[in-house]
């Protein structure tokens, strides 16, 4: 495990996207990802995807920052593509209600245009949320994260729990690293040579001290927070909360329109979540 890794490589480049308030970005992220999650219309999905790739460019995210994510996602989506076909080669036919065979494959299985459309749409549906998430993660200051959640009416205590997670993840990661080294120095074998049961036991030898020292830490932190009045009233203000300005409202309205547009396409043009060119 690489302890040099930062949780989010948030970088302070000065772009219009970075300047938006965290709350705005969170709401836009939710609007746009719900838009693609709802719609099964490949035209809508591709449009939103093109838009978000453009925003990704504007926010000057480097490819090196997102390379591992892209790889992970590709592996995931391609696996999904293959097993979907293996499990349900007729899924498209069921969904669209017609059957246009392209070519016969082994046995009774054949490739249909409906299946192709279904799988291609699903493929883009999956990958189109990725740039959206990346924009949000890489351009939002982690400090603004909790106040933004509270801004969309998430209970402030739950929002603060997220902030604590971000605050203590690096500490826990470092501690995990230290414990695992200390145990290795006593002869623990963490390599892949060990047998399954041994690896299981060895993992426990690291997890147990990690968790038990965290229990002490929980007591300490909650005392510190009680002593400084956490939870005394029903609401709370945030030091990092930025006031919304014009750019924020523009972004909010734009993403709301895209969301509404995607719903409208389904409701008035396709008359369902699906775009069906076969009828």
């Amino acid at each position: 495990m690489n302890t040099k890794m930062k949780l989010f490589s948030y970088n302070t480049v000065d772009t219009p996207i970075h300047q938006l308030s965290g709350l705005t970005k969170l709401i836009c992220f939710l609007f746009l990802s719900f838009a693609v999650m709802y719609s099964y219309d490949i035209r809508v999905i591709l449009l939103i995807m093109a838009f978000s790739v453009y925003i990704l460019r504007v926010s000057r995210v480097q490819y090196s920052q997102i390379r591992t994510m892209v790889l992970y996602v590709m592996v995931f989506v391609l696996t999904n593509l293959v097993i979907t076909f293996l499990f349900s080669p007729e899924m498209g036919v069921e969904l669209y209600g017609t059957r246009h065979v392209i070519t016969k494959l082994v046995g009774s299985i054949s490739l249909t245009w409906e299946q192709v459309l279904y799988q291609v749409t699903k493929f883009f549906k999956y990958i189109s949320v990725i740039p959206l998430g990346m924009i949000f993660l890489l351009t939002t200051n982690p400090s603004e994260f909790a106040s933004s959640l509270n801004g969309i009416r998430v209970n402030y205590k739950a929002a603060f729990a997220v902030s604590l997670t971000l605050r203590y993840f690096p500490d826990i990661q470092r501690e995990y690293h230290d414990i695992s080294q200390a145990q290795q120095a006593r002869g623990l074998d963490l390599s892949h040579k060990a047998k399954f049961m041994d690896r299981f036991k060895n993992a426990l030898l690291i997890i147990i001290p990690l968790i038990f020292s965290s229990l002490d830490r929980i007591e300490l932190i909650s005392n510190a927070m009680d002593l400084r009045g956490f939870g005394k009233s029903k609401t709370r203000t945030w030091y990092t909360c930025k006031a919304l300005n014009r750019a924020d409202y523009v972004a909010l309205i734009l993403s709301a329109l895209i969301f509404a547009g995607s719903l409208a396409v389904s409701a008035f043009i396709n008359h369902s979540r699906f775009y069906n060119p076969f009828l």
Partner: protein
Amino acid sequence: MKKDLFKVTTKTIVATGIGAAIFMLLFMYVKVPSPVPETSFQTAYGLSAFFATLFGPIAGALISFIGHALSDAVQYGSPWWSWVIASGVSGFIFGFAFKRTKVEEGEFKGKDILTFNVIQIIGNLVAWVVVAPVLDILIYQEPVNLVFTQGFTAAIMNIVSAGVIGTLLLVAYAATRTKKGSLAKK
């Protein structure tokens, strides 16, 4: 009893924050490969079952939800909502073991182990065999047979993981607890 179950104190919140951080770490890095190729036991569900038993359903639900959502975000760039929500549901149900076992009083034996495991199995089944597949179908229109196959595999893996790791952690924790008026100077 019911009221107690959902009480949120500062400690619940801190346990949630720290628990989610550990969940993330385990979820991303500490997977124990299973004998079945290409699959692994997520030790993270052992952790969420343990924390849920100590701190209740709210903490349990949030730990799995936040932990899973953030690890997905770090790894894939965006949370995989159907599975993230299922994780949250599993943690929530694990939380019903809170106050139903005597682990805080330093006892975790036969009956408590059984209670914990029954709850943990129900939680995993509901989350992975019902919630996750249904959401997958609703949101992504995944093929029914595919999602249920995946769901069953996940449920079994997570039942084993929560059962073994969760039980071991609780037994170890019970050993560190002290009873009322039990500590005397030597």
